């Protein structure tokens, strides 16, 4: 590999093994030796392209220059994977998001405006606009800070900034969409006030805070190259977009309200709670599971 050193006393190392040879060998000599490595045929191939006969007289080469490209690549991948695992703090992100989801429930209840007349009831969830934008911004800031502090304590940089930026962007999207909807739809009901198509319902759920939390988690899973988080997030998104009526309220059959909650007003407020409880519980359970898995790995 390092040409033009004829006559010099070069030290060569055979394969990735520990033995250093100080004599002069030709590649043919060495290729003829019995290879003790598990990668015998592979090393033979490497020797023939001259890769194994590498001078190791480089500065500070106290560690052998294991030149098997497969081993080198494998080591690089292993080290990168270890760094990524050490940078992760997935459980903190999930627990913070679970806490934010649970705290939203009383805000939603208290600030919901309900107007009923003979034809039916209209409701506006004002609490969502009052609570979620600042709460999500604080949550993403807290998550980013936790990641940075934990990574720094371990001697690493953090790769959480794109997640926090995505989270902040989703807050802007949510605020803009809900403000526009609150201003426009009371006088111009979508689809003429008739039944809503399913894609519209899914879109409505996607730009709700619970859907946007899932979108930001997808970014976190990509940043961390965390397959477990990706799978969880896909399941979570399926739940909040396709299963739970997060924006419409849920009337559970046989769910008898206590007598002091029998009014339509209260029933409507109550119907919004189960979806939020389930979403928070799912995030909480996932956070605990990730924390447990991390502890058991260590």
């Amino acid at each position, binding site marked *: 590999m390092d040409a033009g050193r004829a006559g010099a006393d070069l030290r060569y190392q055979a394969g990735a093994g520990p033995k250093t040879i100080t004599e002069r060998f030709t590649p043919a000599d060495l290729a003829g030796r019995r290879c003790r490595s598990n990668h015998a045929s592979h090393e033979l191939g490497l020797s023939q392209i001259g890769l194994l006969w590498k001078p190791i007289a480089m500065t500070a080469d106290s560690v052998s*220059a294991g030149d098997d490209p497969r081993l*080198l690549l494998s080591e690089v991948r292993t080290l990168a994977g270890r760094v990524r695992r050490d940078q992760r703090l997935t459980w903190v992100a999930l627990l913070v998001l679970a806490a934010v989801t649970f705290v939203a429930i009383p805000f939603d209840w208290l600030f919901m405006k309900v107007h009923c007349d003979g034809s039916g009831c209209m409701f506006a969830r004002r609490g969502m606009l009052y609570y979620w934008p600042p709460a999500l911004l604080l949550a993403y800031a807290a998550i980013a800070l936790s990641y940075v502090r934990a990574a720094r304590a371990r001697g690493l940089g953090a790769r959480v900034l794109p997640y926090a930026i995505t989270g902040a962007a989703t807050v802007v999207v949510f605020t803009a969409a809900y403000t526009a909807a609150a201003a426009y739809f009371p006088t111009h009901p979508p689809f003429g006030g008739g039944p809503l198509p399913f894609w519209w319902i899914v879109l409505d759920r996607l730009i709700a805070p619970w859907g946007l939390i899932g979108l930001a988690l997808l970014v976190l899973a990509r940043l961390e190259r965390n397959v477990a988080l990706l799978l969880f997030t896909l399941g979570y998104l399926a739940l909040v977009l396709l299963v739970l009526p997060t924006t419409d309220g849920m009337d559970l059959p046989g769910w008898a309200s206590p007598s002091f909650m029998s009014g339509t007003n209260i029933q409507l407020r109550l119907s919004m709670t189960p979806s939020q409880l389930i979403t928070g519980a799912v995030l909480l359970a996932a956070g605990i599971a990730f924390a447990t898995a991390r502890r058991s790995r260590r």
Partner: protein
Amino acid sequence: MTADTDTPGPPDHPATDLDEVVHQRVRLGILAIAHEARRVEFGYLRIHLDLTAGNLSKHLTVLETAGLVDIEKGYEGKRARTWVTLTTAGNTALAEEIGRLKALIARVEITTEDQRS
């Protein structure tokens, strides 16, 4: 006969392009960790590469001299901390080295298959 006279690889062989500074197990490991971590502390490198402080310092000096990493020394409280950051040149060198390693593996596989057939 010397090794050099017997191993004149073809000029376009991927092995001829290998950068001696990067193509070394420990230094490649340092670059890989620094790339993944954005910023890595000396102690983390020492533990995960299983090196002595002196040995790691020598490798870091080689990389810093080549302009592949930036080294920043400071204190956190009373504790001395040395942070290593990959430079743009280091990033490029790492990407090129990995590309060459992949090319070499592909070349070796072709060579081995030819010998078997």
